[in-house]
């Protein structure tokens, strides 16, 4: 009897300790959903970034098919994670487009810095009355900088296709 009491006390303390010190910070499901999202931070899902959308999906507020950059594959991955049947991408939120990066036509740029705050990843370099440019390697292709430009000098260019990035295509005919 005494032994059992002691055992339970020890186990109880252990559980209490675990609950206190091994507590998982944040919602692990949000993390998992966020990891599957393409991180373009484009806001096409009507949420201000990928993480807010992940939170909305986790809480059941948003559907899983609102991310155009993720495409059908992304929807399938989310469905797989959440254990629900996959569904087609909701095109009300936009069409999936081939990977592209923003490009500033430098001779047209007036240096108004209006494109700099919308960039979610600080990929635009420039200062007031100075010509701006996009750091291609950092650009996620979210297109958020295109609309604010008063002189329409930002265009989206499809990612350059050079031999070093080329990959073999499957042949299953």
């Amino acid at each position, binding site marked *: 009897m005494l032994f059992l009491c002691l055992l339970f006390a020890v186990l109880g303390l252990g559980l209490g300790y675990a609950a206190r010190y091994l507590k998982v910070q944040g919602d692990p499901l949000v993390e998992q959903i966020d990891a599957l999202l393409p991180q373009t931070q484009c806001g096409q899902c009507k949420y201000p970034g990928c993480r807010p959308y992940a939170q909305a999906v986790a809480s059941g507020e948003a559907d899983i098919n609102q991310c155009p950059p993720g495409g059908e594959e992304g929807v399938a991955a989310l469905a797989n994670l959440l254990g629900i049947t996959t569904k087609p991408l909701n095109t009300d939120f936009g069409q999936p487009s081939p990977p592209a990066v923003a490009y500033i036509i430098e001779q047209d740029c007036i240096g108004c810095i209006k494109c700099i705050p919308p960039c*979610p990843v600080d990929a635009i370099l420039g200062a007031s009355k100075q010509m701006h440019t996009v750091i291609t390697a950092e650009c996620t292709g979210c297109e958020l900088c295109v609309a604010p430009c008063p002189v329409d000098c930002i265009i989206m260019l499809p990612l350059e*296709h*050079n031999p070093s990035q080329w990959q073999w295509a499957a*042949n299953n005919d």
Partner: protein
Amino acid sequence: MIKQWKFPGGVVLDGHKQLADISEPTLPPELTYPLLQRSDYYVEPVVKPGQRVLKGEVIANSQNPLATPVHAASSGVITAIASRLIAHPSGLSDTCIIIQTDGLDTVCPGNPCPNYQLETPAELRHKTALAGIVGLGGAAFPTAVKLKNRLPTHTLIINGAECEPYISCDISLIQANAQQIIQGALIMQYILQAERCIIAIENTMPVAHQALLSAASEVDIQIITVPAIYPTGGEKQLIEVLTGVKIPAKALPADHGLVCQNVGTAYAVYQAICLGLPLTDRIITLTGKGIKYPKNIRARIGTPIKHLVELCGGYTPDVQRLIMGGSMMGIALSTDDIAVIKATNCVLAMTSSELSVNQAAMPCIRCGDCATVCPAELLPQQLYWHSRSKQFEQCQDYQLFNCIECGCCDIVCPSQIPLVQNFRAAKGELTNKEKQAAQAILAKKRHQNQKQRRGKEEQEKLGKAEKRQAMIDKMKSAATNRKTV
């Protein structure tokens, strides 16, 4: 007789090797050098259009040791740095340096070193790097990087086992320049401070074997013949045959104290050290029934394939396909207006009668022949099913990245399924996915940093506004106090 081992799988193939002597080509009017080297390393041009260059002068270089300098193969004028079709499986164009030759072939003076033993191994290794030497077996990995041993090397293997059908550039080089190859091997042995040096060739090449034996009669180098089973000439396969050491897929031979170099590389090292000549030419086999007079040519790197084919009398009327490399691992070229690169060991023009695949792929019948011949001990059939259904993670579980793309499975497949092509595509998909994931992580981090920074700025602004408000309130109350007084 030295004990030999056997590697798993492999196939015995018809050699199709026409052992011609090496012929010297005429000077091409134009030389083209792509800036893209193996995988995705680019070199930077160090010349400008209009500049005159001499033979052996550096025209492009890189800070990265995995990209080797490029030297002009003849004297002339740089006419352009522009986009041209390059020798690459993609069939895409990329930036190239183009030299119009002046016919004088003026040589840039080199720095020959008649006695290599007076220099330190590090100096010699640096010289091989400056000479732009890469592995001439086909992979074109920088030789100087391979000659840098992190661990002590006990055995240097010089690979003369040219196992792929049609290619005979190494064998013809051995027959013509055995003495120089031995010298190159000794230099590399000295650089690596290796105890043992082996030169391996296939047992179907008695003339080359004899040439090596007589050239190596006075030095301590073993000449060993190995059975002609494809792919014996693969680095890890040859090491297994000669030493019994099985190099794990993710390890390098250097981790086991072994270094393997091609005979062509040994010759290039000899030329670079003893004669002070950078790598500007190599032996290229032009063969196949599609070529009138097959030849081995000591071609300048940068020569258009068209020019070399003309030296062989042109094509036969029934030529079907142009391939760079051998029939097993070569890549198809869309045109012959492409310059040869350091990795070009063979240009193969095949007629339809020679092509191994003459029909569309049929369904897999699960015979399992592919698994028996796979030298990497993989299950090509499983890999095929998974890659076909786009289950690339499963492919990775079946060790897709251990595939050496030798093509043994392709050749035995009774349904003629292009297995290797599928595996290459699956590898590409996985590599792309990995790149995208890395990009996503970067974007996420940058977005989080931005949010944090903007939050902080906001807070600072609020703090300042509060302070200001407090100050105003204080002044106001002071004023009212004064009024009341």
